[in-house]
Every structure is written in C-alpha cells, then in structure tokens.
C-alpha cells in the first residue's frame, strides 16, 4: 500500500512541477512531510514564484493559491487521461497574465482532446475553437453560437 501510494505520489509530484512551471514560470514542489512514513504526515506544497523566494502555499496570495491548485488538478488528471474535460470557472481569481497562460495551455491540450471551459474571461473566449453563450430569456436558458466580435462588443 505504501509502495502504491509512493508510485502515485511521484507521478503527481512530477506532473505538478511541469504544470506549475508552465502556468507561472516559477517552480513548485510537492513534498512528503515524513518520507519514511508517508501516512503519518501530510503533503506539503512549496512554491517559488518568479522573483520571489520559496514559500509554502499557505503564504501565497489568493490568485497564487488558485493557479497552484489548477496545476495540482491538471497533475491529478494526468493519472487517468480522459477524452473530454469540463472546467467550470477555474480562472475566477486569476489575473490577465495567468488567464492568458491557462488559455494557451488549454488550446494546446485541445489539439488532442476535447476541452469544454466555462469562463467569464475574454482572453479564454478569444482562444476558443467554438464559442457559445448561455443566457436567460423569459425564465428559460438559451444557447447561441458566438463570434468573438460580439463578445468583445457586449463586454
């Protein structure tokens, strides 16, 4: 059981480093509190954002925590790849820079797989292969295909 956990942990930790660097340009690590007895301790997340010193995720800002959580989520997804992904407003706390990097990452992932993203960010809408709007009219939801110019004009 310990071996299975450690194998999984190593895979997730490696993927987390890659995704965190991809999204932030910084370095992030997952560490076992007690490497010899993993189950007696927790998993620490240490983040070194560009230009800053390494710190626990607990000391990070709201948006920094959220981009680190997205990197962890993507790392966990890597364990059991799926044919489609649905993300609901995972960029809510991200600034323009992180939103752009996430949109570019999704664009790249979407070459191989179907990615459905719910987002209020223009930068995500700009990267879409397909863009739809869902709105309420007369108590009922409607769905329309959107062209990007319409989104920018409404925005």
């Amino acid at each position, binding site marked *: 059981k310990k071996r299975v956990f450690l194998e999984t942990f190593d895979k997730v930790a490696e993927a987390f480093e890659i995704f965190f660097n991809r999204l932030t340009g910084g370095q992030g690590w997952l560490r076992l509190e007690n490497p010899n007895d993993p189950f007696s301790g*927790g998993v620490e997340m240490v983040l070194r954002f560009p230009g800053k010193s390494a710190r626990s995720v607990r000391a990070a800002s709201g948006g920094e925590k959220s981009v680190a959580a997205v990197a962890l989520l993507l790392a*966990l*997804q890597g364990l*059991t790849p799926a044919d489609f992904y649905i993300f*609901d407003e995972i960029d809510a706390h991200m600034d323009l820079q992180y939103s752009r990097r996430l949109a570019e990452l999704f664009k790249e992932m979407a*070459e191989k797989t*179907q990615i459905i993203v719910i987002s209020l960010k223009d930068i995500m809408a700009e990267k879409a292969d397909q863009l*739809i709007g869902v709105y309420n009219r007369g*108590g009922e939801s409607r769905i329309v295909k959107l062209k990007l110019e319409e989104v920018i004009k409404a925005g």
Partner: protein
Amino acid sequence: VFIKRLTIQGFKSFGPRKISIALEKGLMVITGPNGGGKSNVMDAIRFALGELSAHNLRVGRMAELIHDNPGTNYARVSITLDNSERVLPINSPEVTVARRIDRNGESTYFLNGRQVSRNELLTVLSMANIKPSGFNIVPQGSVIEIAEMGGSELRKMIEDIS
C-alpha cells in the same frame, strides 16, 4: 470518445422546448451572464452520464432537476458520443446516451434509443472510462477548495486515487 451533440429538454433552467448543440473536438468555451445557465449545461452532461448525487447536481432532491415551470413534467438530456474508434462496445460510429427523469424522481435510461438499465449504461460507458464524476469534471468553486486544503487532506486525496 468525445461529445458530438448535447440535447437538453426541461432540465433545470432549460425550458420544455428542446435545445441542441453540436460540439467538435478542440476548445469549446461557454460564456454568458451570471445565472444564464452555464453551470447547468455541465450539470446536464453529468446527469446524462448517470450522476446519482443530487448534491453534485446542486439540487436538494433529484425531482428538482425538472424545469420549475408547472407545465413541464420531465427533464431529458441526451449526449451523442463519437465512437469512430469503437472504444464503446456498440457497433455504431456514434453512440447516444439519454436519461429522462419524471416528477416522481424516477429515471429512465436509453442507449441509441433503446431503453436500458442504469447498470447497463454505466458498464458501456466504463469501457471508455467515462463516468459522471472524476478529475476531468471540475465544478465551479472546486479550485478554491483544493487551494485551501491542508497537508493531510492533500495526502488523503492522493491516497484515494493511488
């Protein structure tokens, strides 16, 4: 096995008149105003894939999934999946799964138009590793929960998937 078409009728904020959208592989972005129905689209997909937890579909009881207009008596969602690689054990290039729920809370399931048991539907979908909950489906607000996790919760999460 990706989603080619989604058809929603009477489900949550969607009225009784059928709404259908075609999807392609690639990046699809869903936008729109607060309360428009974006997250309800995601709920519709999970519902059709067999979600049993009312909590995961953000309702108190499953019957509340039906559009709350008094004239609407059932909710129905169908998903057409690409099966060109025959990953699903059905001999057709497309496979349509559908689920309907009535006011009494009872669900009926369909595979390519034929009524099936929920178990049969789940077994077929599991061949393509498709289920209504999993790391590939990320609900609104879940990122904040992950961000706030302590060290032992993080370890438990990795334990659960190893």
